[in-house]
């Protein structure tokens, strides 16, 4: 191969035809509130961990819905499990349970 000093970039697009949604389905199977999210961001705004880092529960869930399993699982570890998000979520998404499910997925789903 010739090195021309440049190369095609990684494709930065969600391709829903190839996205691995197995984790999303698995979580939904165990907690249907996963689907109830309206992406309002209350969880991320109130997040104790979010004061110190860019952790966002909403983004983690979103990444799972787009098949970005590895980054979502890695990111989920920043959660302190404090439960503020559960108390503020307007759609009663069982946020802590979903974090626990994602952490459990770390043992089984991690690609």
């Amino acid at each position, binding site marked *: 191969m010739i090195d021309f000093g440049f190369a095609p970039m990684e494709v930065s697009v969600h391709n829903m035809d190839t996205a691995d949604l197995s984790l999303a389905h698995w979580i939904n199977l165990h907690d249907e509130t996963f689907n109830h999210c309206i992406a309002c961001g209350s969880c991320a705004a109130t997040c104790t961990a979010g004061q110190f880092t860019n952790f966002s529960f909403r983004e983690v869930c979103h990444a799972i819905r787009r098949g970005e399993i590895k980054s979502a699982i890695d990111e989920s570890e*920043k959660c*302190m499990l404090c439960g503020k998000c559960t*108390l503020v979520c307007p759609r009663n998404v069982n946020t802590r349970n979903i974090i626990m499910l994602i952490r459990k997925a770390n043992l089984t789903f991690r690609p």
Partner: protein
Amino acid sequence: MRYHPFTLPFSIGLGFIMLYIIVMWTIWIVRLSRREQKIVWKRLFSFRTISAIWESIREGLLHRNIFKRNVLLGYMHMSLAFGWFMLIVLGNLEARLYPHGVINPPYYPIFFEFFRHDLTPLHEYEEIFTFLMDFFLLMVISGVSLAFFKRFRSRTLGMKRTTRHILIDRIAITALWFIFPLRLFAESVTAGLYNTGHFFTNFIGQWVIYNLPLDYLYYPAWWAYSIALGVFFITMPFSRYMHIPAEILLIFLRKYGVKEKESHSTFTKIELSACSRCGICIDACQLSTSLNISDTQPAYFIRDLRYSQPNERLRETCMMCMRCLEACPVGIEITRIRENERREHPLFSASSYGYINGYKYPKAKVAYFAGCMGHLTPSVIKSTLALFDAANVDYTFIDKNGSICCGRPLQMNGQVEAAKQLIDKNNHLIGESGAEVLVTSCPICAREFATSYHLAIPVLHHSQFLLELTQQKRLNFNQSGLKVTYHDPCELSRGLHITSEPRELLQHAVILSNGSKETESKSLCCGGSLGITNISMAERNKIATDTLNEIVAESSSYLATACPMCRKTFANAQDKIKVLDIAEILEKNLNFAPEKVSEKNQSPIKQQAVIS
């Protein structure tokens, strides 16, 4: 005659169970840690032993704790345990009144009625003994009847739900239930033939003699009785009835100071065996009473843990509110065991929270820590700080710009390695702040600070601190005359045993009125629990409203609580009653004494808090 082959099933069973108990006790004791063994030896010849004996009698035979819960239920347990015990003791004594003398084979007193009819007593108290034997047999039979009745109408005995037993328990319980009716029958048949009984057995014997062919039933009756005993003994080690020997050992070890550690130990094995699956924990559990989740309570969790591994659902479906712990007649450290079991399943790594490294708390004298949940109830923070101001406390709101979680939620969910990172960081930062006392309005944090941190300074819940200020006359309140129900948060009441301070404090401003007995150490959980993740918000709300319906006295204007999470959970669940934190109620009724105000005006330097 001193022998008959029908005694064999009993003798084999007894031999087996005695051997088993000796072996198990030895194994357990040998496997205790060196330190535990040391304290046991050290304390063996002390008052603790006497105390343990008394407790064994009190709880093992008389079942005082269960009596306290429900008289009929207590009687049922007592009649079986104490009644049987008395039958054994009296039987032994009685047998010694007869010519064969002091040394008897073990089966002899048990089947004494069989052997007795051709003997002449040596003693004038024979009449009393036969009476007592009949009396206690009647007692046991009444207990068995109640136990049988309980299977169908448990509510009469104060139990909404009873344990659903596994096969081995069903076999053992059936054997147990058969022992006494069979004994009664065998003794009655004998009494019918030989008039050896007293009011009970003779009475039945007379009835039997006219109705049944006694000669044919005589030996089969004794055989059946012996077999029932044998079956019971053989099944005992593998069934719930292992709790009988295990509980005795447990009581002694506990008295000597052995307890659960941060992971499962030999002591855990003893505790697991000491659970009789009586099912009292099921009714104590609000998951059962409010949500109909009645298969994850300690009776089942401990059972599965004893035999193998509880599944994930069993392990996780618990609010960790400790009501079962409070209710358990055996005093098994259920919540601790469950937490330890959760620890076996770490989900977070030990390097999750690198991002908090740069964070700092400001310098402080009296450090006020609102905690995560506290930040969701700013009115609690505002009122607390207003009270501090009124009392001229030189405080610093150390997590004003954000808390690092205390680690309790992670810990409750078994994520101990992860929690440790937060604990270490907070511990260091609080130490660095130079605080002399740490006050928090969150019982969750308070419990964690008090039990998992190694802080060199006192940790106070704000109710304790405010009470102290009030006692020092640095705070004055107007009595509003309003009636208020106080709700004990789990972590505060059962976790830290703080129940009187909030009440004493509140009474300065309001009149307390409780609508329920489920208070203080028995208080009901709000449902907001951080110890559970797998119930929905609707289910949490159901628990919250059930709790409010139970505890709020009709005359109450407010529900007072002392935990930001309880406050939020109750407030989110309903609109009927306003929920306020203690601090909020107190601030409303704050009375600035005139001299206080002038003092404040004169001296801008705040007084230093004096906390013992």
